[in-house]
């Protein structure tokens, strides 16, 4: 009896093992059978899609989605259907890295768009570099990511697979400083940041550049993301006699700061970066936002028909999230990957290379050579993987809406 039960146990085990192996083989064949009509290639998106930062993250996801839909609809690459695979990194580095390994392990994936946070990017760069797969961030602004640790003195590109359509803190901070000093004629600035990679970097550059122009920084402070009460900070600003508040960070905090600032009777404008360039800022701050300014990359969207079309599509589809901050950059990043696939196919006699590793390395080369008109202006990358688009625009809140007041490059405002 005992022996027999062992025999049965063994047979159950064997069945189980066979079940598992069979399961594996089926999945492989399933992929092949789906290829009958067109080759399906996957483009990954990594951004925070739930919880904190998700509003901005969803803007990235759906910005990329619209680019993929456009490519499929217009048949940009004949014989190839693109599919978007969006993964949520919850703004956590380890999760972002795990998503990166998902993409590199996917044998149909040709490239990835994302992430939002520079801290997450650091953990992903090496994974993509090892797989020789292109990664384009629509939002990372830390100069170290493309130009190495000593970017101020000795630029050196650490990863040749990493690109970004967002501009660096350096350009944006300088542009803002120039406009504040020369355009707005402000002489005394109070500089605040949110101690995140993006905000702190931006505020630091602004601080340096503003002083270089001859302005005076009458005070600095740092806040935490998630803070709600800025009473103490506002009193400090009031007491400092500043005529401009520069804020490095996202709209969540800056909308509260500008409201509390104006309520306390300090009628000075708040100036920020592209992380604040969203209608949510105006909705959350209400009348207090009037006269506040931001810098954002590219020329104003309403001067380009393609950009207007993009915004219309986003609204028509009822997508969640906020396209304002990074949606258009995500669209351009995705388009750059698609165009690189097309270049690889053209060079290969109209067919995409079948070996995925070959294709990926060709896409990296193709993205490096990108040169097309995107939603935010001309999309091309320099030798570090940074966008060559140095056009920046200053927007100001006027009657409850963002209005472009100045467009140029940092050099124009010297």
């Amino acid at each position, binding site marked *: 009896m005992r022996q027999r039960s062992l025999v049965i146990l063994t047979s159950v085990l064997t069945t189980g093992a066979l079940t598992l192996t069979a399961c594996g083989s089926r999945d492989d064949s399933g992929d092949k059978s789906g290829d009958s009509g067109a080759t399906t290639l996957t483009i990954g998106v990594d951004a925070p899609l739930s919880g904190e930062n998700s509003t901005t993250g969803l803007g990235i996801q759906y910005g990329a989605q619209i680019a993929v839909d456009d490519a499929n609809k217009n048949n940009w690459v004949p014989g190839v259907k693109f599919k978007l695979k969006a993964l949520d990194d919850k703004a956590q580095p380890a999760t972002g890295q795990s998503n990166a390994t998902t993409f590199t392990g996917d044998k149909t994936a040709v490239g990835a768009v994302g992430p939002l946070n520079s801290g997450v990017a650091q953990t992903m760069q090496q994974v993509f570099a090892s797989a020789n797969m292109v990664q384009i961030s629509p939002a990372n602004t830390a100069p170290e990511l493309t130009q190495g640790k000593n970017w101020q003195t000795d630029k050196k590109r650490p990863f040749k697979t990493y690109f970004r359509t967002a501009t660096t803190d350096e350009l944006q901070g300088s542009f803002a400083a120039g406009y504040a000093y020369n355009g707005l004629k402000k002489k005394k600035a109070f500089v605040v940041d949110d101690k995140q990679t993006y905000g702190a970097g931006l505020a630091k550059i602004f601080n340096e550049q503003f002083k270089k122009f001859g302005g005076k920084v009458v005070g600095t*402070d740092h*806040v935490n993301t998630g803070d709600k*009460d800025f009473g*103490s900070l506002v009193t400090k600003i009031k007491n400092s006699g500043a005529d401009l508040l520069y804020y490095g960070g996202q709209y*969540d905090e800056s*909308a509260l700061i500008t409201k509390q600032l104006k309520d*306390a009777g300090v009628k000075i404008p708040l100036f920020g970066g592209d992380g604040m360039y969203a209608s949510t800022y105006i909705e*959350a701050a209400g009348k207090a936002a009037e006269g506040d300014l931001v810098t954002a990359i590219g020329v104003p969207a309403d001067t380009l028909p393609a950009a207007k079309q993009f915004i219309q599509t986003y609204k028509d589809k009822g997508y969640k999230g906020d396209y304002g901050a990074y949606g258009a950059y995500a669209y351009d990043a995705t388009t750059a990957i698609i165009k690189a696939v097309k270049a690889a196919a053209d060079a290969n006699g109209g067919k995409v290379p079948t070996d995925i590793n070959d294709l990926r390395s060709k896409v990296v080369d193709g993205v490096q050579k990108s040169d097309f008109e995107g939603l935010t202006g001309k999309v091309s990358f320099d030798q570090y993987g940074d966008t060559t688009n140095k056009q920046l625009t200053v927007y100001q809140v006027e009657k409850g809406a963002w209005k472009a007041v100045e467009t140029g490059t940092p050099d124009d405002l010297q």
Partner: protein
Amino acid sequence: MNTLPQQLANGLLLGSMYGLIAIGYTMVYGIVQLINFAHGEIFMTGAFGALTVYFYILPDGTSMALAVPLMLLGGAIVAILIAVGAERFAYRPLRGAPRLAPLITAIGLSLALQEVVRNFYPGADRARAFPGLDTTHDIGSVTIKDADIFLILAAVLCMAALALFVRRSRTGRAMQATAQDPDTAQLMGIDTNRIIVIAFAIGGFFAAVAAVAYGLKYGNVDYRMGFLMGLKAFTAAVLGGIGNIYGAMLGGVVLGIAETLASAYIDEIPGMSQLGGQSWANVWAFCLLILVLLFRPQGLLGERVADRA
């Protein structure tokens, strides 16, 4: 310009809000020894309840004098319903369970409440505008606005009412009895389940008052507003002596003032210039808490319940 009076006012206002929320922690803890970590989210839902009244129930253009009491009512109904519901369906079944089980429930509840609001409340995936009371008044060198006056008045009135209720009313005395010795209280014919529900309800009401004050003061609300406020309020409750309602209010005010002053002046101390500013304020607040507990382990005003750790 001397900024100290203004900074003290800033701290007092922030602290009053902490104190109002801390009442919820302290009442529940005093009676069932449960840290209701989801209380911050009850505060948040109160704000959305009030917002619903203003935007979806009242006609446009209702004067604020009429709208504010109705918003208080709406916020209170929502917050109390959720607080009592949480007690009935999430915490009560766990009353005999290991001490940590309700804590995990609270974490889950906290996540679930945030996500329900974010997913299902229109436009709540980002900050939503809240009507404000923004008329400002200058009193000496201090500038305050109507919302601040509302907050202070609400805190004082609510505290006075609660003190009267706990001392004078039959239910209040039953509550004290339950906190001191639940077994005996039950033997004396007190329906302890009812007392616990009432404690949760009072906590919900105070949270709703704080939530309306918050909305009026800051002009917008969002689904994550409860997390940090809840954490600070819990700190305030412990600082004042958990289980003690006066302690909760005092702890809140002390914490608020400490935070504000740390943020304002620490960087002026020689050698500390880099350790000041708002980003370090929480560190100093927690340091203060640790110091107080080291020298006065029962909190500023002491616990009202027997130590039964």
